């Protein structure tokens, strides 16, 4: 039985294939902890094992390496999933080909602009319409196949079901609204049956089918009109009157969705091969302007952030903190204290740490002109997150770029006066990773944004 480690970012529908297959085969497949998309998979160690740097990637415990979600799923599967005879296996391959060649391109062209993974543009309507038509054609084929069959191959769940269902996951969640999917009774029945199997649920959680078709936001309003988050909120509002909670959920959903899409962006951009079905996506990608450093609009000042970071990394805090105060330019830079708004939701320490590092990662482009030390205090199920930041400018930096607005609303921000003694104390505490939070919880872990 295959055992090993899977490298992926969270909620990756491709990785889900391998994880579900492993659930069925009871294979011991672990997701690599601390995997940071865009960092871990760019390291020489990673690309040595997996030359493309793509995820999911699988490192078997016997030292074998595999790339491509379908290949990994096949490897960690069992006999039932792989097909009980050559013909069944061949049919499974046929459906995997269908999932990758027919369903996925249409699904991506439709869903990605909505998720913001690729930008929506003026010419997109035509592309959307074509994606919808292509999807309809694929679903029609599936629907007539599933009229007389419960599962795709051999009347029992196989890799074919896992792969096709995972490729349909995002469409079913975001765009296949009740009207659109109505004619595809058999596909709907099959899909709902699958995502409710314990092995699927263990990986995917509760899958809620789309109730209202999400629309792609146009141009600059993208950040404002985040339809998916909004849609979830509406249903939450209906279901529960706890609007404040719903509102919070909204920002969280928004955050989560945006987080996913940000993580997927580089990967998807790379993966979109110049297939004909995807020319709309390519066009959208090509039109995306080269991003500039949002800090460029602010005066540079005298403070060399890079220099401080180097000093901080190489020297003891007893030297680097005085160095900071010596070099810091209060005219053009500001110091901020942040505190996570929902400490009661923090459970496991490692998850909270992922929350911090995830935020850092999403703020990648901010690194040049900012620095932070964010600390976790307390232990599992009783912890808080707070930190000290500084960046160029006197205002909250996050509104400068739409890319930076995913996490910051989950934190309370307080600007600190650089001349105040208390500020000095806080800076010292956070830069040297010591002390407690305001309720006396002990320092547990710190993360540096540099």
């Amino acid at each position, binding site marked *: 039985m295959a055992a090993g480690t899977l490298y992926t970012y969270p909620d990756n529908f491709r990785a889900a294939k391998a994880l579900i297959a492993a659930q069925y085969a009871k294979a011991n497949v672990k997701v690599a902890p601390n995997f940071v998309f865009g960092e871990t998979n760019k390291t020489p160690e990673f690309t040595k094992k997996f030359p493309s740097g793509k995820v999911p990637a699988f490192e078997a415990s016997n030292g074998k390496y595999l790339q491509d979600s379908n290949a990994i799923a096949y490897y960690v599967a069992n006999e039932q999933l792989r097909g009980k005879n050559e013909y069944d296996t061949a049919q499974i391959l046929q459906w995997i080909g269908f999932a990758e060649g027919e369903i996925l391109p249409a699904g991506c062209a439709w869903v990605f602009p909505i998720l913001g993974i690729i930008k929506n543009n003026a010419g997109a309507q035509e592309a959307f319409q074509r994606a919808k038509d292509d999807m309809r054609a694929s679903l029609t084929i599936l629907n007539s196949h599933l009229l*007389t*069959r*419960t599962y795709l191959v051999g009347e029992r769940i196989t890799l074919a079901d896992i792969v096709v269902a995972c490729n349909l996951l995002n469409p079913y969640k975001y765009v296949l609204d009740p009207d659109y999917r109505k004619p595809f009774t058999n596909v709907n029945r099959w899909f709902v*049956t699958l995502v409710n199997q314990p092995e699927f649920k263990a990986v995917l959680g509760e899958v809620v089918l789309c109730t209202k078709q999400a629309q792609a936001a146009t141009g600059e309003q993208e950040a404002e009109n985040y339809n998916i988050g909004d849609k979830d909120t509406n249903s939450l509002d209906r279901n529960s009157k706890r609007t404040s909670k719903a509102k919070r959920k909204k920002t969280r959903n928004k955050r989560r969705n945006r987080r996913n899409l940000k993580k997927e962006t580089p990967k998807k951009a790379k993966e979109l091969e110049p297939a004909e079905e995807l020319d709309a996506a390519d066009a959208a990608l090509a039109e995306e302007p080269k991003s500039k450093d949002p800090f460029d609009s602010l005066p540079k000042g005298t403070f060399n952030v890079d220099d401080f970071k180097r000093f901080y990394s190489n020297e003891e805090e007893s030297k680097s903190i005085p160095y900071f105060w010596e070099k810091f330019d209060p005219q053009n830079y500001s110091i901020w204290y942040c505190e996570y708004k929902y400490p009661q939701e923090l459970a496991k320490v490692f998850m909270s740490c992922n929350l911090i590092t995830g935020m850092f990662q999403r703020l990648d482009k901010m690194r040049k002109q900012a620095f932070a030390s964010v600390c976790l205090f307390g232990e599992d199920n009783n912890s808080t997150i707070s930190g000290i930041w500084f960046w160029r400018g006197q205002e909250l930096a996050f509104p400068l770029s739409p890319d930076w607005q995913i996490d910051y609303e989950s934190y309370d921000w307080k600007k600190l006066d650089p001349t105040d003694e208390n500020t000095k104390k806080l800076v010292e505490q956070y830069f040297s990773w010591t002390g407690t939070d305001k309720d006396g919880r002990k320092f547990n872990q710190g993360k540096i944004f540099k």
Partner: protein
Amino acid sequence: MVANLQYLQNLSSYLKVKIEKPRYNEDSLCTCIVNGKIISGLSNIIAALLTESKSNLSGITSLENAEIQQWVEYGIVYVTHIYNNSQNLSLILKELNGILSRKTYLVSHKLTIADVLLYYILLNAMVSLPILEKEKYINVSRWFDNLQQENSLRQSKSFINFSTNYLISVAPARH
């Protein structure tokens, strides 16, 4: 009525739980001994078999178990009468066909005793169902075909042919 004892035998061997002295008592109720206890009434016996078998054919939530109970009663009260006249059969098949168009299994998303019982009750009817009727009740056919793949469920009986060359896929009806 004698058929009910047959369904009991089927279930008993599928669940691998022995029943002793299956018979009809003076009130014409199905009666037998399960694990030393005398139990009367088909649905009571099924419940006892299920408990004894430690199979995972029950529901998970109490709602699911209530639904299962409902289907078992439906099976005993209505479906067993399909052999009395042909009209009953088409009524039942029509009803099931509608329900199974949206569901893979009768209750929840897994095989339960409800599916198994209805399989055994419907078995003889399905054997003699003409191909055109199988096609008419396509959702029942698909469900039945999926169930019969399990050898322990089918027992020694041969597969019922649900040819995949349905007319509907050759010449789809246009509505």
